[in-house]
């Protein structure tokens, strides 16, 4: 059966430490200023600040890799067909074909694609395809020993990730956009 890779972010276990962000940078060598992975704070105005008034406060985090949508808007708008969705569901940008027009940056509701001014192309999270192809997990999943990330095949109902999505009530971001993301989030 064809695989559809996906991920559950267990927001109860996410402590906003950004080990994933750092891991992404060291695995993929993205330059300073280009981040394929970000961690957003659901709280106050600034990063790592809570919502509310002292002492009635709350804060949680939202790690944002590429959603590897099953209906990717970035793919649709790319004038050079540089963006493709692999059979296993990983959405990739072919840097050789990319002309840096940044239509995809505009089209993505999750603000995932990042323009690398030095290279003149748009880049984004590849779900660590180079690792996945060797049977490994994406590096952000590998380093999250806090247990906030579960990766696997969504087409297999018995995979750890599929079961966890059901058990932990995983939901996707911006369902109404019709993008069909494969990254699920459980409530904090």
């Amino acid at each position: 059966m064809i695989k559809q890779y996906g991920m559950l972010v267990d927001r109860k276990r996410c402590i906003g430490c950004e080990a994933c962000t750092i891991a992404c940078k060291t695995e993929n060598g993205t330059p300073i200023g280009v981040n394929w992975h970000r961690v957003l704070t659901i709280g106050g105005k600034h990063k790592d600040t809570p919502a509310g008034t002292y002492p009635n406060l709350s804060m949680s985090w939202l790690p944002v890799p590429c959603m590897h949508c099953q209906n990717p808007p970035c793919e649709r708008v790319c004038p050079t067909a540089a963006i493709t969705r692999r059979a296993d569901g990983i959405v990739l940008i072919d840097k050789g074909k990319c002309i840096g027009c940044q239509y995809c940056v505009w089209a993505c509701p999750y603000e995932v694609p990042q323009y690398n001014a030095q290279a003149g192309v748009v880049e984004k999270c590849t779900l660590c395809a180079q690792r996945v192809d060797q049977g490994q997990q994406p590096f952000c999943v590998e380093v999250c020993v806090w247990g906030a990330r579960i990766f696997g095949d969504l087409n297999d109902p018995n995979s750890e990730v599929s079961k966890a999505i059901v058990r932990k009530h995983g939901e996707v971001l911006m369902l109404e956009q019709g993008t069909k993301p494969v990254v699920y989030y459980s409530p904090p």
Partner: protein
Amino acid sequence: MKLTRREFIKTTAVLSGAVGIGLGIDGKVLKALAESAAPVAQGGEKTVLTCCPGTGCHQSCVFRTYVREGRIVKVEGADYPGEPELKHACLRGLASAWLPYMPDRLKYPMKRVGERGEGKFERISWDEALDTIATKLKDIKARYGSQAVSISAGGSTAVPGGSTSGSGGLGSRFANLFEAGSPPGGTGMDLVERIANVYIYYYDPKTRETGAYAGHDYRDVLNSRLIVIWGDNLGEARLRDFIYVLEAKDKGTRVIDISPFFNSSTAAKADQFIPIRPATDGAFALSAMDVIIKAGLYDADYVKKYSNGPFLVRSDNKKLLRESDIVAGGKPENYVVWDSVTNAPKAVAPKVQEIAGVDPALLGTYSPKGIACKPAFQLLADRAAEYAPETATKVCEVPAETIRSFALEYAKAKPACIRHSHGTSRTYHGNLSHRAIITLAVICGNIGVPGGGVSYRGGYTYEGTTREKFTRGITTATATRTKRVATREYEEPYATKAMLWFTKNPLGGDRGFRRKMEKAWPHIELLVVHDLYMTFTAKYADIVLPGTFIYERSDISTANDFVAFSEKAIEPMYECKSDVWVWTELAKRMGFGEHFTKTEEEWIEYQLDQTNPYIKGITLERLKKEGGIIRANVPKEWFVEWLDKKFKTVSGRLEFYSEALTEWGEELPLHKEPMESPLTSPLAKKYPLIFYTMRIKNFVQTMGFDPLMRELEPEPRLYMNPADAEKRGIKDGDWVIVFNDLARLKVKVRFFEGIRPGTLNLPHGWHVDDFPEGHYQDLLYADFKETPWPENPVHRLIGFATEIVYDQLVEVKKA
């Protein structure tokens, strides 16, 4: 997750704004880094086992380091044989792959050519550097004696738990052979907790034991029915330990966080956040005890057996009643309890925890031989009653109802653990707060039980290597040359003329130290700094030596129940040389080179002392053959402190009543205001705000300033409650001046609802160059000599020279 595109963009806009702007003060660090090529992992790398270069978090993780074409591309947690769950690397560890390639890395030896501190240097050869140092050391020794030279080796290049180069390593060996003066004692951040521990667990004037200080294994929280994180930013400072808190929480264990700050993940993940006024934890703990005692929820059997609660205390002099006080020929070392069975006094010998048929009273008033007495527990109950919730709430600002519910929950959830850190103790009277917290655990029977305890570091690290071998195990006649005297060297009469500082950045972080050194500099003839980067301290050196990263040399680590061989991953960058090499070369020039003839690996073998039962059988050869990491000969069970209940006090019991402290009225815990109190000090009119500095996830002390961390957190921010800011006309992001009578500091404000109004917090670790004016250390007293306060006799009594001066107030104004 309900989040519309509009809301999402709002959130991200803030984030990308934070990343895009403010790259350091003038962006120079990140600009330089952006120009350096980033390493990319592409497969085909060789991997080696290494230890984490960080030391200050005391977690000592072991890494798998990926190297391609002589360059580190990434690191990840290494697999521990048989214990896969120990695999761990936090964001700081993961980012350390970039550290050796920092642009401000020291590249070659240099000598100072400008004014001291000006930062003007000229490249010299290693030979010139070492010869200059040796000649100068001999000259100073001839003119002032060897004690005029102070050697301080250790810090971030050392692997915790054992190292060839750490503070107990070759630097000490060199210092002993040179008969150098000792550096002044550390500033002792954890000494105040230890003082409290000594009085309760160890106090014996004869043995003067100060005890190990760690607490339960960090995984033991899984045995707890309630986890109380008290004044500890566990979720940022000890990220590995926090995994187990999350695990316990997933299983239904409640987590309570007590703090004046809504500290990032610690507070966010807690089921309940209890806000408290800084330095009033003792009042809160006493109030909880009042509730527990009045509700009869204390563990009476435990208190009778394991604490000095049943011992009768004389009302006339507050001393413990002795058998000799009431029986002719009675032993003066024996205590007296009131036996409820016979309704008569009964003598109890030291170290005896139970007498068959005797049921000692905990409450009441008794008059054996006409001497008015109360059991120590009754006195504790009386003391706690002074802190009834309605009274205590005025002191600690925790609502009375919250105090009550916390007390009942803690008493009922057995076992319950308390994880704490410096947050409860960094003040002059912090030991009282900490004694109150331990006493709360004592009366609920939570000491020495799995899942209980009052733990600080969390995790039992055995002493695998025999550090003394480096300093005392020398077999030649020079072995006895260890006349090191701790000198107050940077003060009158300025006895110290030369310093050798290896991986030490006191000018960049130690409170008040810059100010203190201003007076000492004219008397200093030589400062040698061996470090990885051009630190603020290195700028003041006469000779700067480039050191090696853990990745550039081999070393050994004995922590987390494992022995790990940290293999050299890459060749040293530039002309960087290890501590081992430098000490060896200097020793040759000083004429005691015969004590430094081993190679790096031979020193490692030397450390793996085969007479030490913990590591017997673990040799370097075996380590190399078996993947570099082997479990030490330590028990599999998670360490539980005081499991045998054999407390090392004179009575053999938990001494929450401390007879030795009656003179200062501190025989029982109580609340005392900080030396500069916003409530009671006249100074508070001028300086109304409490100033704290906390640790954040990005740094450990002044270590870990790699480009990746800079990207996440580009510049220092002063956390300020908007209510305090508005009163002063300060807006979010404004530059402000923080000041007191000692100094001023310029920094940007970050509005933070998570901080108690009246309190400021400036995370520590930021370098002097990160501030356009001043540094947080300048706002703090260097030591007691600088303060108008007397040294705390309760600290002195057990021989700790603490320098706890976090009692300070400040004011803020718009810059």
